[in-house]
């Protein structure tokens, strides 16, 4: 927030604490909203039931109740487990989530770091969670956990590539790796000369958007790609031995990552904090930008969770076949076509 001008000059420690609070909110608020809206409510509506209704009006405080429930559970570490690695694994997964939120812009001036390689940084740090999952599965000293962790490692590494390649199309079209630059390119772009609504990349990069969504689904180990956490086979896979607060960290981490990847998708394909029709450099966007972004996050997350609740899961080798033999060639085709069209037009 170095370029944000405030009425009063704040001391350094005050600025830092504001940033820390905003960072926490930026991670936890999407997580909580997604958990409530989609996991509790949308899944229930799709299953002809109402979901939690008791805690708070329409069950809105259910997540708080769940946090309280997890906090008071016994802290169990399996006897044969590697204690240090076991306890450190949830933190590694959470670290990657918090690092991801650094580069997502909430408004023209609302971004933690405005680096020129924004999207590259985001994709790089999202791979750290793989190590956390492997640590969790290995340190649990249980065969189910190990099976789950090995499946997860293979899956997450395989789906990194379609994720990155799908983003390449956006980068080529925007001409920059900078996140704010990508938003500006969508805000100020034109579709065949019509500049009314800008040029959200979803229209031209629809294939990239589809590949990105599929890859995000796999990165989050959500059905239909949830082999590592296949509940009916592995009893939650690498998470089997985790209970109480440690499980809650994985759980919140999963939904926070879902929220942040949705924010990435919203920024790259839907235009981020920009609303068509207004001047993108207006200071108004510093106020309504985060809310606009949240709305688009909910839209993208709706798609992700809709697929999650409807489809059965792939087998591991079918999953890998999908990644290597279908998604990567498709994304390469997408890059070639985008490059050609960018040069020609």
């Amino acid at each position, binding site marked *: 927030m170095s370029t944000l001008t405030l009425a009063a000059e704040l001391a350094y420690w005050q600025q830092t604490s504001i940033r820390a609070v905003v960072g926490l909110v930026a991670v936890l608020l999407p997580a909580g909203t997604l958990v409530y809206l989609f996991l509790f409510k*949308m899944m*229930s*509506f*799709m*299953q*002809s*039931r*109402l979901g939690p*209704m008791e805690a708070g009006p329409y069950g809105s405080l259910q997540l708080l109740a769940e946090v309280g429930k997890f906090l008071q559970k016994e802290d169990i570490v399996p006897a044969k487990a590697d204690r240090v690695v076991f306890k450190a694994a949830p933190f590694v997964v959470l670290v990657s989530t918090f690092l991801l939120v650094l580069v997502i812009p909430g408004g023209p001036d609302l971004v933690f770091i405005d680096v020129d390689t924004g999207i590259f940084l985001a994709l790089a740090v999202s791979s750290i969670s793989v190590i956390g999952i492997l640590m969790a599965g290995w340190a649990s000293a249980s065969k189910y956990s190990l099976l789950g962790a090995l499946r997860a490692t293979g899956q997450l590494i395989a789906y990194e590539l379609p994720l990155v390649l799908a983003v390449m199309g956006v980068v080529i079209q925007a001409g920059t790796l900078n996140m704010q630059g990508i938003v500006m390119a969508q805000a100020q772009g034109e579709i065949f000369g019509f500049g009314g609504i800008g040029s959200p990349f979803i229209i031209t990069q629809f294939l990239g958007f589809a590949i990105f969504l599929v890859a995000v689904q796999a990165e989050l180990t959500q059905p239909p790609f949830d082999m590592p956490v296949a509940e009916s086979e592995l009893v939650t896979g690498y998470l089997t031995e985790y209970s109480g607060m440690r499980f809650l960290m994985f759980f919140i981490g999963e939904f926070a990552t879902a929220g942040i990847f949705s924010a990435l998708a919203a920024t790259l394909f839907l235009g981020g904090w920009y609303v068509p029709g207004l001047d993108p450099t207006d200071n108004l966007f510093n106020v309504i930008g985060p809310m606009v972004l949240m709305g688009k996050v909910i839209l993208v997350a709706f798609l992700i969770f*809709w*697929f999650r*609740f*409807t*489809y059965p899961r792939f087998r591991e080798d079918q999953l890998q076949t999908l990644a290597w033999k279908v998604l990567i060639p498709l994304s390469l085709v997408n890059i070639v076509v985008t490059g050609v069209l960018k040069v020609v037009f």
Partner: protein
Amino acid sequence: MPNPKVPGLIKGLGVTMKTMLRTLTKGSHTVQYPKVKEAPTPRARGVIALHEENCTSCMLCVRECPDWCIYIEGHKYLAPPRRPGGKPRKKNALDRFDIDYALCMYCGICVEVCPFEALFWTPEFEYSEPKIADLLHDKNLLGQWMETVPEFTDYEAGSEAKKLEVPR
């Protein structure tokens, strides 16, 4: 030209979306118990009620229960004769008639074999207790359940069964 087949993936999405919209507009299939309660059917086997006047302590229900969960104790007493100058009548009086609902299988054999129509089913089901010992319903409680016994339902057309009356 035949209709292009919609891939099953899309049809599946359509089913879940349709269900979600139906739940949002018409309400869900679940009810928020205990604020809203659904009434079970009249024949539902909720709890057994005892009409004490009809019971003669014949012990048939005790014998036929698969779990042996009915406990009966009675004594004989002499009732005054019907006509003056006649013989005093020997009658059974119930001291104790307990049904242990912690053991009861809700099979209904006791209600069925009772020859004197002293036992009846009621659909009342909300009698859970924190202590298991409280699940032993004694004579008075079983008599109170008689208030919840519904009338017997009519039968379908073509049936030759006769509808019984519930003694009140």
